[in-house]
């Protein structure tokens, strides 16, 4: 198609014939043959130009020229490997970062929920004055299901642990316990088997389980013959009826699911028949076409009716109400500020990369101006030249884009697993056609922008002859070229400033977080969770007995200096057991919430093992096992809040309006369970040998290596109860680290992006100075010859760079301030306009800029006047 050799020959002949005929005419008119030929050629006006213009009207010429120009682009890029490599790598970083972060945003924020009911799934909450969500009773859920007209279904949900036997070691399985219509309601179809049938939630129905997709894959390798298999869970044989598709780990990352009747606690008559025994959560699906507001209005009406009908279940003083919260919002609330911050940073990095490559290609353009001017003079069309440069940008950008998408694809697994720290939708982060389309569109825009730089430059370059006349520097730079390039570098400085401020702030915030005193000594402590089989250890006596046996058996384990048990772990992020109590002889303040604290059952050596100081009084001993006169220990701040100046030791408190009395025997140091919590957590400790629990945590303070200790812990537990799983084995340092995982991730990514941006900006700046030095070499040579000092020469060439930096800093400062809200939501104990951070970033940029300017400036000092004057 593109072989025009024959046509070209034909055209040559035709034009030659034209000139010959014309010459003949002139000769006929009386001219000498030579003069006639010259005149004919003159009239023709450049045979090559005519040929070029004829070629331009050939069909398919545009496509053909593009193919040619693309080949040309590849060829010229190959001839400039340094520029090509720098540009491709820079763009790869920018496009890669933007694509990777967009894949997170796309997976987590941009889609409706991957269930049939989509965003119509709502979490019903029941806030009161004393709790943000009291939860619901089984009766309330049933009544709401009956009454709510705007909702197509209301279901109950809670999560608990079962033990699964008969599949290797006993497994602790997190189990979602739901109404039998739950999956039909939210619109989830099983990948194999079936979901629950109406009636299966009845107490005493045949026990069935559904497997989550992740559990099925990890435990059974996706074996589809699993349907129909049976497993003993706690005391009953359960039949697997189906496997669920991959779903967000919401409300919990459950391994398996059971119908509501499977939970003996929830199914106890006292729970089922009492309107104010609230132990389950409620989920509902709003009917198609009904707004959340309308559903909420109906909830208010129905709520008011409930309050009127059952005043005892809704004490006026508690101001209880039903509130519907979108499930999608709940799943993404924490992710939003993090992802917005990451997205902004990635976009800025991309902008810096684009500005950088545009600067590079503009500089290249400046160096090539003579060549380009020559080609214009030789008949190359301006449009064609511009197209060639645009294609060069296109080739660079798509090469960079392909590399960038490769980087993003390689990083996506890591990003997905890190995202589980802040959203249950992390599993939806994946490379798909949307991401590729995004990357492609991004490349197109970037290529256009980069191509626009030489175009804008071309508009500024009006005089071809002027370009050709340029002397020994081999380059031209009109004022407008330089202004554009300096603007690009200024933009890079500003963006780098904003990014570094963001990175600096989240980094400072992380340092503050790392520094938070949780009140415990997390070093050298191994912790493990023993979720007791609640059907086997179904009385307090049995739970106390196993706790006691564990303490005896674990005492003196090699490498362990002290052993403790507790009903929950320090540094847990959620409240486990908030208890209200009254202090004997102190009237509770009216209206306010009254004394309350997180109640934790602990063994005698708990404080010693996890490193909480006993400030006053004493710790528990093995003798504290009298259930008629229970000892208790309170944390320090509570004393100040509730006892004031009175000595709490010896005073009594009651958690149940006088049925039981606890005597305070000691005061322990404050702890903070959530590191970001501005307040310490009030704790009420009771002896585990009196108030045992089904969730037992083991703590071992080690004076040796952890792995053998874990091994002997597992062996000891197996000796005591071979059916008891040991889960969540980790050091307290890891427990603490889990709380910092998300800020660490954010800080790492934001800082990495910011540092890349700084490096790119420094190279851009360096380029500007290097160019300036080349331009002014003759001037500098003269100055040196006239005896100018090194300092003044340096100042002369560095001045331009420093003006750019100063202006960039100024703009960056304003932009950072304007964007303070974006980062503010992620910060802990650091203001979004933290002066120290701003100052430090300005110093870093100035320092980097000084180096970036100084390195190329040195060449100016070496300028040899003699050489310069010779025109070298």
């Amino acid at each position, binding site marked *: 198609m593109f072989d025009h050799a024959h046509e070209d020959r034909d055209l040559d002949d035709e034009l030659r*014939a034209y000139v010959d005929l014309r010459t003949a005419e002139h000769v006929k008119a009386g001219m000498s043959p030579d003069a006639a030929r010259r005149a004919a050629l003159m009239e023709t006006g450049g045979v090559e130009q005519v040929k070029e213009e004829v070629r331009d009207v050939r069909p398919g010429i545009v496509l053909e020229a593009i193919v040619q120009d693309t080949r040309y682009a590849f060829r010229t890029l190959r001839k400039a490997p340094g520029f090509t490599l720098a540009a491709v790598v820079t763009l790869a970083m920018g496009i890669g970062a933007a694509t990777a972060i967009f894949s997170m945003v796309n997976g987590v924020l941009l889609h409706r929920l991957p269930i049939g009911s989509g965003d119509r799934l709502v979490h019903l909450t029941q806030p009161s004055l004393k709790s943000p969500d009291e939860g619901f009773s089984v009766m309330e859920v049933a009544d709401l299901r009956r009454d709510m007209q705007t909702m197509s279904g209301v279901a109950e949900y809670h999560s608990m642990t079962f033990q699964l036997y008969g599949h290797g070691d006993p497994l602790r399985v997190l189990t979602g316990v739901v109404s039998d219509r739950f999956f039909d309601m939210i619109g989830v179809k099983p990948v194999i088997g079936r979901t629950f049938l109406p009636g299966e939630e009845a107490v005493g129905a045949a026990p069935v389980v559904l497997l989550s997709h992740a559990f099925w894959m990890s435990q059974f390798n996706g074996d589809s013959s699993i349907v129909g298999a049976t497993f003993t869970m706690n005391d009953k044989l359960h039949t697997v009826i189906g496997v669920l598709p991959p779903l967000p780990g919401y409300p919990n990352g459950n391994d398996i699911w059971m119908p509501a009747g499977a939970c003996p606690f929830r199914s106890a008559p006292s729970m089922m028949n009492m309107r104010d025994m609230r132990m389950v959560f409620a989920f509902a699906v709003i009917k198609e076409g009904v707004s959340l507001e309308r559903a909420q209005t109906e909830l208010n009406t129905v709520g008011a009716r409930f309050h009127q009908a059952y005043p005892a279940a809704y004490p006026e003083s508690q101001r209880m109400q039903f509130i519907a919260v979108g499930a999608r919002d709940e799943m993404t609330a924490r992710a939003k500020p993090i992802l917005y911050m990451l997205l902004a940073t990635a976009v800025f990095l991309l902008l810096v990369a684009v500005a950088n490559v545009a600067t590079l290609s503009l500089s290249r353009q400046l160096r090539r101006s003579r060549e380009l001017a020559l080609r214009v003079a030789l008949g190359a069309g301006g449009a064609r030249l511009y197209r060639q440069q645009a294609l060069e940008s296109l080739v660079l950008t798509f090469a960079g884009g392909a590399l960038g998408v490769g980087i993003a694809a390689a990083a996506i697994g890591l990003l997905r697993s890190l995202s589980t720290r802040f959203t249950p939708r992390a599993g939806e982060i994946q490379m798909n056609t949307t991401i590729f389309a995004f990357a492609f569109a991004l490349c197109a825009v970037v290529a256009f922008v980069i191509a626009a730089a030489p175009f804008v430059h071309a508009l500024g370059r009006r005089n071809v002859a002027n370009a050709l006349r340029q002397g020994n520097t081999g380059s031209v730079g009109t004022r407008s070229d330089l202004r554009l390039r300096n603007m690009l570098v200024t933009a890079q400085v500003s963006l780098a400033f904003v990014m570094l401020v963001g990175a600096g702030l989240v980094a400072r915030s992380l340092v503050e977080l790392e520094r938070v005193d949780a009140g415990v000594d997390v070093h050298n402590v191994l912790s493990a969770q023993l979720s007791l089989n609640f059907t086997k250890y179904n009385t307090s006596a049995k739970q106390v007995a196993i706790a006691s046996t564990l303490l005896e058996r674990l005492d003196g384990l090699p490498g362990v200096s002290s052993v403790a048990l507790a009903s929950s772990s320090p540094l847990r992020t959620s409240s486990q057991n908030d208890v209200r109590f009254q202090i004997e002889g102190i009237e509770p303040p009216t209206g306010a919430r009254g004394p309350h604290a997180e109640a934790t059952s602990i063994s005698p050596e708990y404080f010693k093992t996890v490193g909480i100081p006993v400030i006053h009084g004493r710790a528990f001993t093995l003798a504290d096992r009298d259930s008629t006169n229970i000892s208790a220990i309170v944390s320090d701040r509570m004393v100040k809040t509730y006892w004031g100046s009175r000595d709490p030791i010896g005073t009594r408190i009651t958690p149940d309006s006088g049925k039981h009395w606890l005597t305070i025997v000691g005061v322990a140091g404050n702890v903070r369970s959530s590191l970001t919590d501005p307040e310490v957590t009030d704790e009420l400790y009771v002896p585990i040998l009196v108030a045992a629990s089904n969730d037992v945590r083991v703590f071992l303070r080690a004076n040796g290596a952890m792995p053998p200790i874990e091994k002997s812990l597992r062996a000891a537990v197996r000796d005591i109860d071979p059916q008891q799983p040991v889960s969540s084995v980790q050091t307290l340092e890891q427990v603490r680290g889990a709380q910092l995982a998300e800020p660490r991730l954010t800080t790492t990514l934001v800082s990495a992006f910011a540092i890349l941006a700084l490096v790119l900006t420094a190279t851009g700046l360096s380029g500007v100075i290097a160019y300036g030095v080349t331009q002014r070499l003759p001037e500098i040579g003269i100055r040196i010859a006239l005896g100018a000092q090194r300092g003044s020469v340096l100042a002369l060439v560095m001045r331009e760079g420093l003006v750019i930096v100063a202006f960039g800093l100024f703009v960056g400062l304003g932009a950072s301030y304007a964007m303070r809200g974006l980062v503010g939501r992620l910060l802990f104990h650091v203001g979004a306009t933290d002066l120290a951070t701003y100052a430090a970033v300005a110093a870093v940029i100035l320092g980097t800029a000084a180096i970036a300017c100084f390195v190329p400036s040195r060449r100016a000092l070496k300028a040899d006047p003699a050489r310069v004057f010779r025109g070298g």
Partner: protein
Amino acid sequence: MSQTNLLQGTLDLLILKTLTLGKLHGLGISNRIEQITKGTFQVKPGSLFPALHRMENAGWLESSWGESANNRRAKYYALTKAGRRQLKSETDEWSRIVVAMGLALRNA
């Protein structure tokens, strides 16, 4: 010698018109146009040849190599059927424009 710039599209019409009497080579077309317009239009090769090739690609003209009056090889262009149709429609169009412009200039 006074010259008038060819209106866009006028060149095509002139070329088609000059070829109604028979085939001509490039220079012949150029001379004929100059002649029939009494020197008002001089068509330079830079405009003529791209136009000829474009019109040939459009199927209005066909070309062949032949001998000129003084025994020189030259490429001759002739009208095709499509070319005659095109001439007719462009002529009609042109007449309409002339009438319209005339009216406009007289009455304005």
